[in-house]
């Protein structure tokens, strides 16, 4: 018996594949924290966890893994996520980055999959563009609560799998110039938006299912483009009409010519690698540290002629 027996239908090598994979998770709030927990249970071995914030009182209605004690100690969300995973796995490979994802790009580039659980359209678009540049599948999760009038509300959301070359968030109509402009105009004026734990859980569970499909599918030909709509009032998650309409469409917004770093120069890269190797060899050839007591004793011994 081992802990993965109950998910052995994922394939004989699924434990290895999941353990070898590294997941980039940007945004560790309501949605992201569910994904952290489930990925830890599932057996994903590597994580780049990115969030600049610490847990606050308004997070406690939905931040999985967060405790009341974290409020007093101002525990970073990346630390809460790391603690959660380490409670589920013996030797996970975790790179916590308590910063914006723009300062974690070197780590994120090496991930097999990036999940964005971020608030703004601007951030979504930038993160997707970064993922596409590095040929990394990007999964976007988002939910919102809209007032219908008369103190009635609609909970809605979406999960989109944005595969390099396939339809993107702009193709899906999620990112539009109008939305970006509206968001930019509201910048600084918006208060905290309503969020609840159960709808985040539905969307996050769907994301973990997509991650599993990408790494170790349990059926043939899993879809390489997914656009699902969540209706929290009806309790449904259904394919958006565009999922079928765009299925075989090639994305015009992120052409292949955009992949990679336009300023890359292999001569600089070679120099950088040589410098790193030199520093490593300097470090490894340094004499072993001598303890203070040994140094003092050696001095006394010399003075006494011993």
């Amino acid at each position: 018996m081992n802990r993965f027996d109950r998910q052995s239908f994922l394939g004989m090598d699924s434990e290895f594949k999941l353990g070898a994979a590294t997941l980039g998770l940007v945004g560790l709030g309501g949605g992201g924290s569910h994904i952290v927990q489930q990925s830890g249970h599932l057996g994903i071995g590597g994580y780049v966890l990115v969030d600049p914030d610490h847990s606050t009182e308004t997070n406690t209605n939905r931040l999985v893994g967060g405790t009341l004690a974290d409020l007093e100690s101002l525990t970073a969300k990346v630390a809460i996520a790391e603690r959660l995973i380490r409670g589920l796995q013996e030797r996970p490979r975790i790179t916590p980055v308590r910063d914006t994802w723009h300062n974690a790009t070197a780590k994120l580039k090496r991930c097999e999959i990036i999940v964005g659980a971020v608030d703004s359209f601007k951030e979504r678009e930038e993160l997707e563009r970064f993922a596409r540049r590095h040929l990394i599948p990007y999964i976007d999760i988002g939910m919102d609560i809209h007032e219908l009038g008369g103190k009635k509300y609609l909970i809605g959301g979406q999960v989109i799998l944005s595969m390099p070359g396939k339809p993107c968030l702009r193709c899906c109509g999620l990112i539009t110039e109008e939305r970006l402009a509206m968001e930019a105009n509201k910048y600084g004026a918006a208060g905290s938006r309503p969020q609840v734990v159960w709808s985040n859980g539905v969307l996050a569970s769907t994301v973990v299912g997509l991650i599993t499909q990408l790494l170790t599918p349990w059926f043939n030909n899993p879809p390489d483009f997914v656009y699902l709509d969540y209706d929290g009032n009806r309790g449904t998650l259904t394919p958006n009409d565009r999922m079928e309409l765009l299925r075989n469409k090639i994305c015009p917004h992120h052409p292949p010519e955009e992949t990679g770093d336009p300023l890359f120069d292999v001569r600089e890269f070679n120099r950088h690698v040589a410098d790193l190797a030199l520093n490593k060899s300097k470090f490894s050839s340094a004499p072993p540290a001598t303890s203070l007591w040994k140094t003092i004793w050696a001095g006394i011994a010399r003075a006494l002629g011993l």
Partner: protein
Amino acid sequence: MTIQFKITRHLLEEVRRDLARPHRYAHERVGFISSGLSSAEENLLVLARTYRAVADGDYLHDPSVGAMIGPDAIRKALQWALSEGVAVFHVHTHGGIGRPGFSNIDLREQAKFVPNFFQIAPQCPHGALVLSNNSVHGHIWLDGDKSFEIVTGFVEVGAPLNIWSTS
């Protein structure tokens, strides 16, 4: 240092389809893949962009090898590296299943033409790939004067992800 080569399933299928086409006298086909590049600390990412087939008329008659491409094919690939500032990888297939390897003739020819790309686009590494029907193996030159490095990992980007490692 690790060197990872990533290619979308869509592009890899295009490459395989093209290389599978029969030629009038060559036994196998050859093409070139252009790539963007990125680094992550001491690790190199080679990110495939597009594919160009070697034109039918650019093969030489040489029954001693599977395919011998002429100077025009190399010139066009060099031109591509120059005009677009991209890394260029020679690609052909040996078919079969499992991890493929280069033949001695492949190694001899690579050593002749790949370093020439550094005269044209010295800012990019260049190299050669050989495919089987379900895997890939690659050599990459990081400097026109040095010998090649082995590409340490490949990712076929699609659903599901296909990930190969040489380690």
